[in-house]
């Protein structure tokens, strides 16, 4: 346990994080690439057609993973903000700052692909349905955290305000999850369930699981890259950054 704390403590220092993740990046990039290509080819070309929706359902292979990660990413951002507030960890706020545009982009992808899936399936790009509206709220929460980062002259005040907004916004996450059960919505109920059988044919489920794994890897990769960029920027006047090229 002591060694874990040591490891965690070292990871908490921006410099150690930078060097440690530098070693992970090639492997993470490789895993992301392989899984993304495999899942995309499988989902687009080899998974069977849907009996009711035809080929338009193939959007599920990016829509569902993007939606998953936009929700999981919100927890990452909120937890990073909480750790920053409680333990005053610099790195934690950097992760929070990196998670905001990433989450906003993935929420945008899930809304956009959802609209394009809705047109041939429901006959409309957009409805003010509980699931879709709560996802739009999520998108604005991400943008709010992002905007607060630039609203203060002091970085410390910006971090605190962003973290508080991120924490308050977590109320929205269970609402998104439960929206398809609580309200009568146009959006179809959850495809994957943690408990009980999923309502999807195995030949469609496997490529979907590959794509979800791919998006998780992608998320980790993008989050680490953005955090490293932020670390370099914040620590640009330190000796170790100067030694990166010269030494």
């Amino acid at each position, binding site marked *: 346990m002591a060694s874990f704390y040591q490891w965690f403590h070292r990871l908490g220092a921006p410099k150690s994080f930078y060097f440690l993740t530098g070693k992970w990046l090639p492997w993470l990039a490789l895993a992301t690439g392989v899984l993304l290509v495999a899942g995309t080819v499988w989902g687009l*070309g080899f998974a*069977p057609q849907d009996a009711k929706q035809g080929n338009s359902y193939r*959007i599920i292979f990016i829509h569902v993973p993007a939606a998953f990660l936009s929700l999981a990413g919100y927890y990452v951002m909120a937890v990073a903000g909480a750790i920053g507030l409680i333990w005053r960890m610099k790195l934690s706020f950097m992760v929070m700052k990196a998670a905001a545009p990433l989450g906003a982009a993935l929420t945008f992808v899930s809304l956009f692909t959802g609209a394009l899936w809705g047109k041939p399936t429901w006959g409309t790009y957009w409805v003010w349905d509980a699931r879709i509206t709560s996802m739009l709220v999520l998108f604005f929460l991400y943008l709010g955290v992002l905007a607060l980062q630039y609203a203060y002259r002091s970085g410390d005040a910006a971090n605190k305000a962003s973290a508080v907004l991120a924490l308050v916004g977590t109320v929205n996450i269970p609402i998104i999850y439960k929206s398809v059960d609580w309200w009568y919505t146009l959006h179809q109920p959850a495809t994957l369930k943690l408990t009980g059988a999923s309502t999807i044919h195995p030949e469609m489920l496997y490529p979907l699981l590959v794509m979800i794994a791919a998006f998780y890897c992608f998320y980790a990769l993008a989050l680490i890259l953005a955090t490293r960029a932020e670390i370099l920027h914040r620590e640009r006047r330190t000796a170790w950054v100067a030694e990166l090229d010269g030494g």
Partner: protein
Amino acid sequence: MFQFDSFADFMTMDGHGVYVWVSYLITLVVMVWLLVWPLVASRHTRKAVRRGAARQERFAKPRGSAEEPDG
């Protein structure tokens, strides 16, 4: 097994092709952007640090030491 009879069939997807392909294309663009901007930003920072270091080195040297001594 591949689900389509021809490449053209794969493109049109019985009329759903536009929706499917545009979805995948936009997703690809967003994902590439998410990976490229931090790399560009990092490179930018490192370049600025290098320039700053070079300038500091110039100022640190005593006057005239950079030039060849006269005759």
